[in-house]
């Protein structure tokens, strides 16, 4: 596409979004797919995804044969940019669009592609992820859910935790242990595209500290799934999962596009500081609040410039992996600080919670409580610091 075509396309997208962006509902929307806690929220977001897909703005670079757009990737990127700029809601089938879909397109059979891809895009089939387990946190290699082959089925037992959208999902990407008779724990794992409808699979919602639901613990009790649900061969589960994680990080590309969360950036906080009042006066006029705001801007801007510098190999410095490996730590801690500060900007009204009376419906209080999913999930901040100390600075293990 040339500059003109791009510009024209962008204008079209922008106009469509302006016309079709859904009005803010009467209830508070979740900010990520992990936070979808009510049918009302889910249906709202599913309808939005359908609408976006029907307009041709999702899976634009995926093959037409399976329901994609067959267009250049850059068009999807433009759509994503415009969606972010206009802060439209996210599309909820995140696991399908960003993890399962790219994986199936990459290594699924023709039948898999025919069966799954279009319905991922249209949000007809919601997908969830079964990686973490209650007793092993994020230690994926140590997964203990068992899958025992019995004829042309696998029998699954055990439980997975933090299954987002578990109650709505039709399929799960599942890591399970198919063998213990192998040289190392990784070789015993296999990867499945498991139907959640199978008898014996029970996703049970977990109530979060926010008071909402949004995750499940999924119990498997002699659940039987067809053997051809397996993706890759038996024992290849670890490497398939690693590929999935690469898709998650966007390192490989191939995602269907669309937003997967409502971005929170420092400008939102600055803007909030102008709107919110502390003891009756605009928060931003209080010198000490202002200074806290400056500190947060410095941290946010600092993260941004770190990302920018990391893209210049000549400026790698003594610890060239430091920036990339600390990204999750820095962004999750910043989010916790920003949302916590956002509550403080409201003075006495900071004590409110999700309700009409609260500023922005109580979004900030909820965001602060939800922010711990970032500082805890995927390896806590404390574990991240161990990893950085050991793998980047070369310090001995704790």
């Amino acid at each position, binding site marked *: 596409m040339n500059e003109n075509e791009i510009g024209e396309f962008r204008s079209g997208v922008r106009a469509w979004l302006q016309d079709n962006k859904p009005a803010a509902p009467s209830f508070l929307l979740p900010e990520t797919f992990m936070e979808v806690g009510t049918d009302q929220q889910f249906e709202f977001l599913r309808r939005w995804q359908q609408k976006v897909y029907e307009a041709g703005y999702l899976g634009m670079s995926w093959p037409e044969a399976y329901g994609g757009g067959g267009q250049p990737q850059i068009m999807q990127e433009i759509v994503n940019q415009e969606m972010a700029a206009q802060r439209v809601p996210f599309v909820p089938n995140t696991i399908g669009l960003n993890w399962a879909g790219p994986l199936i397109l990459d290594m699924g059979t023709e039948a898999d592609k025919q069966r799954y891809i279009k319905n991922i895009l249209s949000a007809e089939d919601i997908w969830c992820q079964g990686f973490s387990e209650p007793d092993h946190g994020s230690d994926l290699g140590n997964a203990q859910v068992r899958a025992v082959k019995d004829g042309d089925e696998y029998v699954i037992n055990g439980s997975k935790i933090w299954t987002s959208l578990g109650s709505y999902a039709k399929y799960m990407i599942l890591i399970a242990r198919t063998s213990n008779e192998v040289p190392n724990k990784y070789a015993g794992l296999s990867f499945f595209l498991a139907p959640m409808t199978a008898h014996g699979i029970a996703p049970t919602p977990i109530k979060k500290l926010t008071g909402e639901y949004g995750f499940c613990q999924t119990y498997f009790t002699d659940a039987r799934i067809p053997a051809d649900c397996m993706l890759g061969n038996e024992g290849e589960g670890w490497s398939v999962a690693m590929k999935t994680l690469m898709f998650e990080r966007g390192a490989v590309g191939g995602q269907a596009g669309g937003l997967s969360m409502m971005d929170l950036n420092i400008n939102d906080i600055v803007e909030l500081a102008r709107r919110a009042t502390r003891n009756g006066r605009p928060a931003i006029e209080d010198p000490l609040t202002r200074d806290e705001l400056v500190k947060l801007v410095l941290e946010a801007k600092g993260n941004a410039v770190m990302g920018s510098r990391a893209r210049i190999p000549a400026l790698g410095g003594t610890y060239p992996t430091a920036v990339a490996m600390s990204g999750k730590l820095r962004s999750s801690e910043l989010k916790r600080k920003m949302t916590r500060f956002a509550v403080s900007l409201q003075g006495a009204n900071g004590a409110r919670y999700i309700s009409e009376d609260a500023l922005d419906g*109580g979004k900030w209080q909820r965001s602060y409580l939800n922010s711990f999913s970032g500082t*805890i999930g995927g390896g806590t901040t404390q574990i991240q610091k161990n990893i950085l100390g050991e793998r980047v600075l070369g310090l001995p293990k704790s």
Partner: protein
Amino acid sequence: MIRFSEEQAMLLDTAREFCQKQSPIDAVRQVIQAGQPLDETLWQTMVDLGWLGVTIPEIYGGLGLDLADTVPIFEAMGRQLLATPMLASTLAAQVLITNGSDDQKNQWLPKIAAGQIATVALTEANGSWDPDQITTHLNQSASGEMTLTGGKVFVLDAGVANVILVSALQGDSLRWCLLDASELPDGAIQREVVIDETRRSYSLALSDIPIRADQVLPGTAFKKIELAGMLLITAEMSGGLDGVLAVIVGYLNTRKQFDRFIGSYQAMKHPAVDILMGSEMTRSYLYHAATVWRDETDDGIVESAVRMAKCCASEQFSEAGDRGIQFHGGFGFTYECDAQLFLRRALWSQYQFGDERHQRQKLSALLF
């Protein structure tokens, strides 16, 4: 200097025992789930213990002790996350004691001591409780009839209160208006959603409420009431800090990771020590403020002492609650983890009567 009276020591022991028994953490969760505006049995027990009359003069049926003497009770309640109308009633009684006429005292103080519920309405929708930011007005018509118009938020336990003391401006002068809750129009009192689920908080819509002269009190004690609120909430927070520390230490001593108790990791142990230090300091500031409240006549010194205590408590308790969630890992992210109860309590308390930044700003002017 901290002085601790025998009355306080006695109240501390009684209150600790009572609150531990009445409000184990399961009971707190049951209270939240039940959603009742008042646990009447519990309330009657507290009334029977004489707690509602601690600060009420003996001639009105109370014990005639200083407000500072109730600090141990509030600390014990805070330790167990026990939220009752005692905070509201005690503050309202202070208003009557300091600004009420003999008639008003005669009419209400004995009832409050006997368990009728009273509350104060200070904060306005913009989050301010400062007299110079108040938009609730006591208006007088040409014929001399007075009406009260405006609105209040964060009125504790208004849903079960018999009497509400509302701060309002009459011209430029601050007044308290004493409202009999039964005379308010339907719908004037609405439950609010606050982050601390143990609290019963209400908004109060005031539209041309007729006010008789005998319902008006001078507002000269306003600052004293503001500081009293800080003192009692700080007492609750001090107890809460002790409570959340117990939750954290309990978890660090039982949860294992990589075959070690997580409390053996310095990344947990040292912040736990920081929380301990914060808790010890808060408690010390609290009893220092209580001592000064009772013994000191210089208003500036009292204000400094109370603000320091509120400042320290706000910062330390909210930080301890935050760390409490984090240190529980995945479990900390669930509603089931008790740390969230304390974090929510901490956040509510932090923003009542000003958080640590607010207090530091005020202290800056008081100190130098």
